[in-house]
Structure formats: C-alpha cells, structure tokens
C-alpha cells in the first residue's frame, strides 16, 4: 500500500498513469475473483460480464446521479445480477458452473454490444463526467489514480473484515464439504449466493472506476487485455499471486500488468509468455508469489538444517 501511494513519484506520463490505473482495476477484479473462487470455491468465467455491467451502469447513472450514487448503483446492481447467476446455477457442480458462466459472460457481452441505447453499441459510450467527490474535482491523472487506490483499499479492508467473520468459516465449510454442511443445518446455497454476489460487486466497482477514469466505455475493454481474455487473465493473476490471502490477487495483478508492459515490445509473444508463466506457477510455485517467503525459509532451513542437526 505504501508502494501504491508512492507510484505517482515515478510515474509521470499519462500513458504510464493509464497502466497504473489498469493495474489497480485488475487488482479489484482479482480480489472479486479471489472472493468467489478461493474463498467460495466457485470458478466463474463471467468476470468480464460483471466488469462490463458495472461500467455501463455507471455510465448510465453518472450524468444524473453524481459519482458516489452511480458508483453504488453499479456495485449493488452488479451484485444482484451476480447473485441471480449463482441462484440460477445453484445445483450445477463445479465444471458445469464454470461452463455455464462462460456462456453467460459471452451472452451478456453480445447483448451489450447490440443494446445501443444503453451501451452505445459498437461505438461505445462517451461523455461520462469526471468524478467529483465532496466538491473536489477528480480530473487529473494523479487524482484519478488515488481514487482507484482508495477504492481498492476499501475493497481489501472489506475482504479482511469478511475473513474475520463467521461468514468466512461458513463459506469455507460449504466449499469443502457441501453435503455435510447441509446436514449440519447450514443453508449452503444462500451462503454461496451471497459470496458470489459480493465478488461480483467488486467487479462492478472496477467497471465503474474504468468508466469514470476513462470517460468512455467500449466493449473491447471487457474482451481482452494485452491480447488475453480477461476471464483467464484474472484467474492467472490470482494463481500467480497466491490464494493464501487477499494480498495474493493484488500482487498477481500488479505483476502481470507491469510485466505485460515490459514485454509489449515482443508483440505477439505475450500469449506464449503467459502460457509459460502458468506452467511455471503450477509446477514450481503452486502457492503463488505470496508463498515465496515461506518457501524460501523452508529451503534455507533445509540447506542449513544439516549443520544444525535440526530436521
């Protein structure tokens, strides 16, 4: 977080700010995905659909409602749509659920592409007012960046609060042993619906921030980023960072977005790099980057263990 606060010291150009904001938005998406996938055990490909929903809702509401209200509408309505998705698919097991959300996500994007009055269709939606918070106009790159970081901070705090609440243990128990949870009197489906909706809310919030900082929403933003499908990219970020804590997805998102910029000169090699990255994580570091310190300590104690005589 200190690092996030210091970014404007190094970053000067508008282009670099775009990358920094993108990294924050993807952190938010990854945190939402972490909520659904790592805590809730629900693997969904519908992330782009919730991202887009939040963005278009914000674009629609912002001119009349102002930033805060439009932002809340985007997050809450996206959460409701997310909850309905899970409700509809309550009986689908893991793989069926994943495939169904893939279809759902595609369907939603196609609808948005053709729903001219709401989304501006193929041309996109222009003229979204820059946010104004308590009289402060968020119209510079630095301010926009800090606004995004502030939202990410709130999201992280919400997740930490969640992890220190009974909702977390109920969700984990339902994730690990759904049948037993039911016979123990837990309402397994409502626990999961709430968690899935919560994750979707974070994705909707990311969409709202995208719309407000860019001032424009186009369908392409929700299909690919750096030539990789967003649904996959978010999964990759969470795996790269690690599912051990909420910091995993954030680190994963920042690393991948920065890496993609560093590699952008390689043109079409990005996908290859991603493929290699996936293999390396899965094979060498299944706990993700956040597990690295622990793994290193283990390794060191293994190396020095012989001389000290401790196992």
């Amino acid at each position, binding site marked *: 977080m200190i690092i996030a606060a210091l970014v404007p010291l190094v970053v000067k150009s508008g282009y670099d700010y775009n990358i920094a904001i993108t990294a924050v938005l993807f952190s938010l998406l990854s945190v939402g995905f972490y909520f659904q996938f790592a805590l809730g055990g629900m693997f969904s490909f519908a992330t782009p659909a919730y991202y887009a929903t939040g963005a278009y809702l914000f674009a629609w509401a912002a001119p009349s409602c102002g930033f805060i209200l439009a932002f809340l509408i985007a997050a809450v309505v996206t959460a409701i749509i997310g909850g309905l998705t899970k409700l509809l698919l309550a009986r689908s097991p893991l793989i069926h659920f994943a495939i169904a959300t893939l279809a759902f996500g595609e369907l939603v994007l196609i609808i948005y592409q053709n729903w001219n009055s709401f989304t501006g269709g193929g041309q996109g939606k222009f003229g979204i007012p820059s946010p104004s918070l308590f009289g402060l106009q968020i119209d510079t790159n630095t301010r926009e960046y800090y606004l995004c970081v502030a939202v990410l901070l709130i999201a992280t705090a*919400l997740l930490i609060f969640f992890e220190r609440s*009974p909702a977390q243990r109920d969700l984990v*128990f339902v994730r690990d*042993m759904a049948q037993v949870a*039911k*016979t123990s009197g837990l309402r397994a489906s409502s626990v999961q619906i*709430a968690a899935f909706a919560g994750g979707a809310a974070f994705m909707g919030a990311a969409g709202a921030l995208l719309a407000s900082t860019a001032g424009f929403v186009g369908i392409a933003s929700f299909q690919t980023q750096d030539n990789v499908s967003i649904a996959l990219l978010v999964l990759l970020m969470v795996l790269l960072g690690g599912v051990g804590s909420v910091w995993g997805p954030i680190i994963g998102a920042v690393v991948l977005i920065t890496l993609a910029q560093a590699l952008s000169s390689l043109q079409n090699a990005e996908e290859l790099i991603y493929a290699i990255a996936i293999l390396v994580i899965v094979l060498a570091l299944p706990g993700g980057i956040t597990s690295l310190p622990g793994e290193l300590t283990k390794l060191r104690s293994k190396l020095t263990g012989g001389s000290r005589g401790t196992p």
Partner: protein
Amino acid sequence: MSPLLECSQLSVQFGGVRAIDGVSLSVDGGGEVVGLIGPNGSGKSTFLNAVSGLVPAKGQVMVDTKRVRLGRPGAIARHGVFRTYQTPQVDVELTCIENALVSSPDRAFRGLIGAWPLRPKMWQHEKERWAAATDALERVGLIARANERAGGLSYGERRRLEIARALVSRPRLMMMDEPAAGLNTTETTQLAQLLSGLATDGISLIVIEHKVAFIEQLCHRLVVLELGRQIAAGVPEEVWRDPAVVNAYLGVAV
C-alpha cells in the same frame, strides 16, 4: 406420548435394487438409544442417508408428529436431528472450534451483513456461539486444541470433533454411523462413556455399530436389518436370541 422420530415404510431404490424396503423405526425423545445393526450391505447407512435427506426415499419421516421433507439434505436438521458419518467429516482447513461453530443453530448476523455493516451485533452473537462451541469441545476433550487446524487431528480425535459439531447444534436426536469404527479399545470405551452421558442428558441416539460390547453397553433397543428389511426388533437380550438374527449373522448351518 408419540415418539420423537417416527419413520414409517421407508424405502430407497437404487436402479433395480431396493436398498431398503419398507423399514419402520421410531425413537423416543429424552435419551433413548436405539442400535441399528445388521450384516454388511443390509442397508443401515442407506437408512441414515434416507432420513437425513441425502438419497431420495419413499415413505414418511416425522419428527414430533411434523412431517419432514425427504430427499432434502438438511431438512431434518432444522428439526433438531443431526448425524455423523462413517468416515469422520471435518474440514481440515478450519480450526477445531470453527469446525464446531458451523452447526450453531444461532444463524443471526452470520452473513455479509454481520461481516460488514453490523459487526458489533455479529460479535455479540459470536460470543454466545463461541461459548456453546467451547462447551462442546470441552465435553469431547478437545478444548486444548480448539485453535489448531482440524487437519492435525488423529482419526479418533476427528470423530470426537464431529460429535462436538453435532452437540453445538443442540440436537434432540443424533444419528451416528459406526462411531466406534477405527477406534482402539480405550477410545471405544471413552466413546461409549461420552455417548451414554449424552443420553443421560436427554439426547436420543440412533447408533449403527458392529462392536457387540459397545452396543450392549449403550443401547436400550435394537433394530436388525438384513437385505434392506427389518428382521427383528426389541431389547438386546431378546434380539440376540432371535433365530432370524442368528441366521443373518452366522448364516444357515450347512
């Protein structure tokens, strides 16, 4: 007085096989212990699965004269009937006390509302829930390991943790699928003491078991199944002398 649990003409069909065929069984409230016995494959576990809604079943299950919907896992839990499994089912990722807490009947402020806007309310309820879970862990002798992950427990300890989880739900009836399986002699004796203590406290039990000494120490009444049908029922001394039971267990003399 009507019984606490009354199952009548319960049948479960797997494809062409009738796993249980018209079994009726009742348990009185207030601490009656019913042993459900029979050779392997006689349908004992299927019977428990049917009552707890894990497999689709025909027939009627009533708790306190209220009809319970069949084929819905958890439907009977809301009537105060809980079960344990043949292989102890604990979440290895959660701590012992968290494993016990999930079945708390106090469901207030346990979702997103309690996690975010109304945390003080949530803590109030958590305090009571933790007190109940602490009592349960104390009762099964796991209090010292309350904050350890359940993944570190031995087989016998997992079994006791499962019992603690059932206790937190404040059950009126517990259905236990081979609670003594895989336990050594000392552990089995301890378990029998624990269970008869629960019965003394007014919790009725249905116990599936193979260990004869364990059954005799614990059960007031036995029901014997063979190939999905009930072949005998009554107090243990009579049931053991019943020729049908002797046949089922030892086979017909050649």
